[in-house]
């Protein structure tokens, strides 16, 4: 807790927390990037799970650059939010659940990306891949839910304010 309290008193943490523009633009960027990443994952996940089979899977590879750019924005904005309130997130088990679900979902996306790169134009996902696609969609729902619940379940907001 002392480490958190010391960090919260650094000029960078104070700026992120107390400058309304810095905090809300970081939060907004986080939501925008999440919306785009999850959205693209939903499109790929649904197609792999068997929905809208007329969509050629290879066509979806053009979304990779946008997807990974937004994933980078999630990481950077997430670090910004963590700098503002380190104790709030790092003392809450839900934060780790969100982090794990998000990481595994992104790894699955990468796995699908590699799998599609090794296939020709006419590819059909195997039952195993369909199951993995459904798992990826569930992981994104867990990520979103854990993220929303973070705002309601923290037991410490600022370590420096604990008496």
């Amino acid at each position, binding site marked *: 807790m002392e480490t958190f309290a010391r960090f919260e008193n650094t000029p960078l943490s104070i700026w992120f927390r107390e400058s*309304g523009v810095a905090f*809300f633009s970081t*939060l*907004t960027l986080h*939501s*925008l990037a*999440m*919306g*785009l990443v*999850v*959205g*693209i*994952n*939903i*499109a790929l996940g*649904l197609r792999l799970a068997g*929905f*809208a089979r*007329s*969509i*050629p899977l*290879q*066509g*979806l*590879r*053009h*979304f990779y650059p*946008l997807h990974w750019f937004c994933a980078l924005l999630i990481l950077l904005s997430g670090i910004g939010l963590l700098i503002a309130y380190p104790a709030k997130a790092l003392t809450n088990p839900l934060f780790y659940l969100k982090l794990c679900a998000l990481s595994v979902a992104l790894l699955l996306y990468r796995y699908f990306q590699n799998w599609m790169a090794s296939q020709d134009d006419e590819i059909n996902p195997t039952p195993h891949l369909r199951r993995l696609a459904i798992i990826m969609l569930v992981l*994104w*729902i867990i990520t*979103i*839910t854990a*993220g*929303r*619940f973070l*705002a*309601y379940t923290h037991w410490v907001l600022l370590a420096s304010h604990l008496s």
Partner: protein
Amino acid sequence: MIETLLEFSQSTGIYGFMNSAWGWPIAESLHFVGLCLIIGTVGVFDLRLMGLAKATPLKALHRLVPLGVAGYLLNVTTGIMFLTTAPDQYLFNPAVQTKLLFMLIAGINMLFFYATTATATRATPALAQAPLRARVIGTISLTCWLAVIVCGRLITYYRPPYHWYFWCQ
């Protein structure tokens, strides 16, 4: 107005659910899932209209749109739950009003698309550029949905009574 909305919320059980231990965050989570469904279906279709992933035929991608409608309905439902439970926090909030304006523009834009451009757009083969009008419509649509996310995030920031803008009087 506020009393009517609160009465509706209380008589339908929404108020009780939203004020339960986890009611509000559950509704918020569903709201964001709905928004991601819209981005993943309508947004991806918009990106294709704008020229991304040309190898994907527009007709095939359009098959995802009904799921976007499902996401939209989920968001209208959860949005009504927020609004009727705390109407004073939403009715006079400039971020909510701007969000609703962007939703309205997105709605009109979509109606315009189906009335004027949808048939020609669906006929666009893979690797071909969508018609110019469809590209403009796609750009407006995606911009509106991203603006909806931004405004939604700013609702907390512009919570009344601290931010009373002239159009909220």
